[in-house]
């Protein structure tokens, strides 16, 4: 096995006790007192309000807008339309890389999805802009909307971010022929919308130096580059402030059309402009999870081993851009079938372009795969956990690579023990509680790839012995302000209160994107390496100076700990950072660090986090109402920087699993293509009463290969496994296999 280049200098070590501490959020007080500034809290002098008018049809063109009526309304300053807008340097429909999505920036009068922006009214007050947008009273030429998954199918060129649409390993058809039993089923998942608590918002101000923006972003450097291209300006002249996000879930990963419209509006009127999406406007131009129809065929031999696993996913993208939910890819890594084939097909519909939504593909595919595995287990007369263990993948099934680490067996064992799984009856509809409710238990396997992107950080040690770490990282609520600061403190060999952690603005080193559950690993490694580099500089100063007690220790190296460097070979000889810098006459020293995935390690190992989720549901036997009475997940995701925050991440994911299985769906009018439940009263997500009991167990896992810190991601894995576990528990409770999600009570009362 190849050695991974150690990113920490072997000569110099750092000891710290910050990593692993269950600290509460350092920004918690700011948030609960309302002092944390979110984008829409900013009000620069002279600021105007912009409100979007959005399309009331799914497909066609805007024949007319009553601009005069809007302009005549008191307080309205200007109305931005396709005929009246700042010139852009780039066509919003141009696309030069797979991470660049087409935007609707009033480039013409075409309507290609409901709630597409068709004009922007700019006014002295929010109320005037709102009324101005109403007064535009658009008249449309309407074409028939294309909706649903029954349109003309095609094989997309790639799924997710450039994954091949079809993957095949072994002979699936032969595997199915050889099987003692074949389980075949079709599962459907609906369109879902991110619905971050904080809607997309922007306050944009053009200054002499360039452009200043307050906007929530999961990727400031990418946003800078996109905006720079659109406006023909240098990226470094764009200053983005995004210290806090009220949730992102992928919908703030790339700058969205409405945010750019805010910048255009500011340019048009020559004053700062604020544009905040209304809740219903989040159901259109800022991405969503595409619907799927997934067909699974599982062959099993007499002993319950998978002979074949065939997973086909039909999904939808917009009429004008490409994002294909990689749902079938969920079957690549979990179960050791002799033959595995996955394939995708797609149709085009008149919706906004679907995008990354927490566990894109993994969540959608997982509920179908875990349901099908459950069906196959029952067909084999096996306990569904025993069936999963029987088909446990010792190496990654298709690639044949060893796993960099995989504590999934421990997850199954610890989760099952905590849940009490061993007493589960095999037959469905065989358990009732004392009040007469049907009780069902289900299990699902969770997995998510351990990804890393690229990032940079800058570390500084100052004359007073304190440190500073700078990185333009993103806190979506997951706790980056805290977890990354913990890594920074250990990276600098300092206590947390001696480190000034700077983050959340675009003038700091590029931290990449907070997505793919990779931010802690990626930004964390850049921080770790920057710390190593600055400690190395400090050590050079000391070990090369005969006045230092560390003089001559250059070959042995030093240990940085609590603000002092110690000789590795004689820990009693040490010197404080402040003393080293004072003698050198330096106010501070600084150094940069970088992070990226190690291609050699990636080539050699399959890297994934894993987990096992156990669900208990209760179902009213007459009325069909469902409640998830217990949800217990056990997850192994490498090194845990902050168990308190990680547990919260797992809870959030698991609760989303409840939502996926039981609640969430966009209701789309079958004629107009319009979403009829674009608000949080009718677009249901779980409320507290739906989550009476959730537990997350953190299973120890040491991974020497993913990165020097051993970090895998935890942001998305919680949805996977959970949704399937709940669906399986509903079947176990009722004997009714629901394959159309979310599961509604009407599916359980025997009238459907």
């Amino acid at each position, binding site marked *: 096995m190849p050695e991974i280049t150690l990113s920490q200098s072997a000569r110099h070590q750092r000891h710290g006790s910050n990593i692993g501490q269950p600290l509460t959020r350092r920004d918690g007080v700011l948030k609960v007192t309302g002092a944390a500034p979110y984008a829409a809290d900013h009000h620069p002098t002279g600021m105007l309000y912009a409100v979007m008018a959005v399309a009331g049809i799914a497909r066609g063109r805007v024949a007319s807008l009553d601009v005069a009526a809007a302009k005549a309304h008191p307080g309205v300053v200007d109305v931005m339309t396709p005929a009246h807008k700042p010139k852009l340097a780039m066509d919003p429909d141009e696309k030069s890389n797979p991470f660049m999505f087409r935007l609707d920036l009033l480039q013409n009068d075409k309507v290609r999805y409901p709630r597409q922006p068709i004009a922007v009214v700019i006014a002295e007050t929010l109320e005037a802009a709102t009324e101005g947008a109403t007064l535009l009273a658009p008249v449309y030429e309407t074409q028939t909307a294309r909706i649903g998954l029954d349109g003309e199918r095609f094989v997309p060129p790639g799924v997710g971010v450039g994954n091949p649409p079809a993957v095949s390993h072994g002979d699936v058809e032969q595997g199915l022929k050889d099987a003692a039993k074949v389980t075949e089923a079709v599962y459907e998942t609906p369109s879902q919308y991110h619905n971050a608590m904080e809607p997309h918002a922007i306050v944009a101000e053009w200054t002499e130096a360039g452009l200043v923006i307050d906007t929530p972003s999961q990727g400031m450097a990418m946003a800078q580059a996109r905006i720079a291209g659109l406006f023909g300006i240098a990226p470094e002249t764009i200053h983005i402030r995004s210290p806090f996000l009220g949730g992102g879930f992928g919908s703030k990963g790339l700058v969205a059309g409405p945010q750019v419209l805010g910048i255009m509006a500011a340019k048009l009127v020559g004053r700062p402009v604020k544009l905040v999406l209304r809740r219903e406007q989040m159901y259109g131009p800022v991405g969503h999870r595409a619907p799927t129809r997934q067909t699974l065929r599982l062959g099993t031999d007499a002993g319950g081993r998978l002979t074949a696993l065939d997973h086909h996913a039909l999904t939808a993208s917009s009429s004008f851009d490409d994002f294909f939910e990689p749902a079938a890819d969920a079957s690549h890594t979990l179960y050791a079938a002799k033959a595995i084939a996955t394939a995708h097909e797609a149709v085009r519909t008149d919706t906004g372009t679907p995008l990354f939504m927490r566990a894109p593909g993994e969540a959608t595919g997982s509920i179908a795969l875990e349901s099908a595995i459950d069906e196959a287990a029952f067909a084999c007369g096996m306990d569904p956990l025993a069936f999963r263990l029987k088909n446990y993948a010792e190496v990654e099934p298709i690639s044949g690579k060893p796993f960099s680490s995989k504590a999934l067996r421990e997850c199954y064992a610890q989760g099952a023990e905590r849940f009490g799984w061993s007493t589960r009856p095999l037959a469905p509809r065989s358990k009732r509680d004392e009040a007469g409710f049907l009780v069902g238990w289900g299990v699902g396997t969770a997995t998510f790839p351990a990804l890393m992107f690229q990032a940079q950080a800058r570390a500084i040690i100052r004359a007073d012995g304190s440190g500073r770490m700078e990185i333009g990282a993103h806190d979506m609520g997951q706790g980056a302000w805290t977890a990354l600061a913990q890594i920074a403190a250990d990276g600098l060999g300092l206590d947390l209160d001696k480190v000034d952690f700077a983050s959340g603005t675009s003038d700091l080193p590029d931290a990449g994107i907070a997505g793919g559950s990779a931010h802690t690993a990626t930004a964390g490694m850049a921080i770790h390496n920057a710390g190593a580099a600055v400690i190395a500089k400090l050590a050079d100063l000391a070990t090369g100076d005969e006045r230092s007690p560390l003089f001559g220790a250059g070959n042995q190296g030093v240990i940085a700990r609590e603000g002092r460097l110690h000789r590795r070979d004689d820990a009693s000889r040490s010197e404080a950072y402040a003393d080293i810098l004072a003698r050198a006459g330096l106010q501070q020293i600084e150094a940069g660090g970088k992070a990226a995935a190690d291609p050699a390690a990636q080539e050699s190992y399959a890297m994934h986090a894993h987990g096992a989720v156990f669900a208990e549901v209760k179902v009213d036997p007459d009325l069909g109402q469902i409640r998830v009475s217990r949800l217990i997940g056990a997850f192994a995701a490498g090194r845990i920087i902050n168990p308190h925050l990680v547990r919260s991440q797992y809870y959030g994911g698991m609760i989303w699993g409840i939502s996926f299985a039981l609640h969430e769906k966009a209701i789309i009018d079958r004629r107009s293509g319009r979403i009829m439940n674009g608000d949080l009263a009718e677009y249901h997500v779980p409320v507290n009463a739906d989550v009476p009991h959730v537990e997350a167990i953190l299973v120890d896992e040491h991974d020497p290969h993913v990165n020097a810190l051993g970090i895998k991601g935890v942001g998305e894995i919680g949805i996977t496994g959970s949704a399937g576990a709940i669906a399986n528990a509903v079947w176990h409770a009722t004997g009714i296999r629901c394959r159309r999600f979310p599961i509604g009570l009407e599916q359980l009362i025997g*009238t459907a």
Partner: protein
Amino acid sequence: MKIFDYIRPASVTEAVAATAQTGAVYLAAGTNLLDLMKVGVARPDRLVDVTHLPGLDRIERLPDGGFRIGAMVRNATLAYDTGFAEAFPMVSEALLSGASAQLRNAATVGGNLLQRTRCAYFYDVESACNKRVPGSGCDALQGENSGHAVLGWSPSCIATHPSDFCVPLAALDAIVEVEGRDGRRDILLDALHRLPGEHPERDTVLEPSDLIVAVRLPAAAAAFASHSRYLKLRERTSYAFAVVSAAAALHLGAGRIAQVRLALGSVAAKPWRCREAEALLVGAEPTPEAFKRAAEIALAEAKPSGHNAHKIELARRILVRALNEAAAGTPAQIAALPASPFSTMPGALAHA
């Protein structure tokens, strides 16, 4: 937003006078009206705020044992009034099963009665809706209508009335006191809301300027206190409108049903009183079989208005469940999950 006048009258008389002009509407807590104004469904020229009117915020026990509730009493205040909850436990339970704690703290008794339907096509100004724009058509009829009416609907409107509170009120013969241009009058709550017919734009029988000032519960209604229940089926455990709901109240004597009150919610444009089913049960023994027969009668005229046939069966079943629970006796305390089928689940948490 559209510019409008805001008036805060000092008396009921002033309030009635202030709504003389067209485009004037009463504003109570605004938990529904302000939303409707934000989405452009309601565009009033004048809001007459009645929340500060003197004397409308009292809960009074009448000499005969009935109750009179001022129209501006907040839902939460009424639900937690001990004397009221003891006399009419299913009304309190219905109130506590509605909306969220924050909304219940704001919403008023009078406003609850006059809330508009939750039909998505009514809220969506791009859709055709006879209730919003008379004569424009009904996009719900061939649309996404799994939650729509199964009783009393017409081809011009299949919307339902979403109130929980009104369901037990209809069952208990509550009376609505109305102040209008010609003085004060009483309307039986069951007669307040209209079925759509050809004029779905008229939700109620109220005339312009009519102001609800109080709701009265007759003394006779308190006779059901020991055997009554409101149950509400939802797509999530709390903070959701009913799929269907039922209020059932029994007065038992010598092992038989002496009197019974039944009403269904979210099945029609009004809370649906089930008088024929009541008649069937009077004198019968309180058995599950009798309750099933009553539920059959109650839903005999029901027919789907779209993709909602399941609501008919659910309405039957929830009526049977509510009757069974009423027969078993009103719980000593309102459950932690009010009106939920899971309210009997041991260990249920008070998170509703």
